[in-house]
């Protein structure tokens, strides 16, 4: 299924805002996705610390959740976010790439339920977690 991965990568990387952030899809399939966000000084939320703004973390989590839904074997087509909650555990370390992993753990005909985690290079302590519900759209 390498084709599906390539297709999904092209799809995500064709989103104008994903491109503006430099998002890269690194894994996809069976309702799971992984996306990376490289450190970028334009995304800093507090110039005194150099920490990336929470909004950019929300964006990578939202994109990753959407990709996980679309990769689910029971998802026929596109998706849109209904609701997304983000919990911020700590500031991401300046200079480090942020990696988001999402898992679409349940899907019905109309709704997909997703959990995601954002990490920097310290894989023991998450930066943020997300839980969301997404629409399931016909092909």
């Amino acid at each position, binding site marked *: 299924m390498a084709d599906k991965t390539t297709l999904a990568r092209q799809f995500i990387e064709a989103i104008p805002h994903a491109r503006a952030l430099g998002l890269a899809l690194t894994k996809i399939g069976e309702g799971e996705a992984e996306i990376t966000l490289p450190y970028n000084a334009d995304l*800093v*939320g507090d110039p005194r610390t150099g920490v*990336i703004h929470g*909004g950019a973390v929300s*964006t990578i989590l939202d994109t990753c959740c959407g990709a996980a839904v679309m990769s689910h074997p029971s998802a026929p087509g596109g998706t*849109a976010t209904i609701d*997304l*909650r983000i*919990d911020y555990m700590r500031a991401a370390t300046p200079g480090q790439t942020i990696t988001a992993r999402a898992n679409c753990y349940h899907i019905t005909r109309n709704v997909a339920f997703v959990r995601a985690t954002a990490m920097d290079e310290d894989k023991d302590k998450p930066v943020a977690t997300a839980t969301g519900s997404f629409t399931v759209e016909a092909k």
Partner: protein
Amino acid sequence: MPRARPEPVQVVKQRRDAALRALVEGVPYMRFLNISFDRRGDELTGVLNFDEKLIGNPFLPAIHGGVTAAFLEVTAVITLSWENLFSRIESGEIDAEDIATNRSIRFPKTIDFTVDYLRSGLPRDAYARAFVSRSGRRYASVRVEAWQDNHARPFAQSTGHFLMPQPAAAKD
């Protein structure tokens, strides 16, 4: 004793606008998304100035859900800071210069943020207003709504909790 004459309008506007600019301009991510703020008295409206790079779904097209979340969060944080600092700005205790340089003046930290997506964000400017439901010494709860053409038809709403910046420990 006669009451003091009110300050000239230019002095009031200059003080408030300079303080707001100092709060907003230092943040690279707000420049990246091109978010600005309109001020009427102490009331702020966030403005997300549309650009093609904010698009998340090129087929509709629609604004990226992450951009919408970020816009609402930025509006919540700036409004909360503004309400928190306003009396100190008005009394002359702090000014724009302090906001830009004083390291003890910090933004509240987001604890959690929940966004309801009500409609897709159209490819045009968006507006947001935050309402501070409660602001305590440590925690604050804020509600935000965002709209485009018609204020009565919001395209997103959210609630979030924030950790307020703590004053430096008092010295004996």
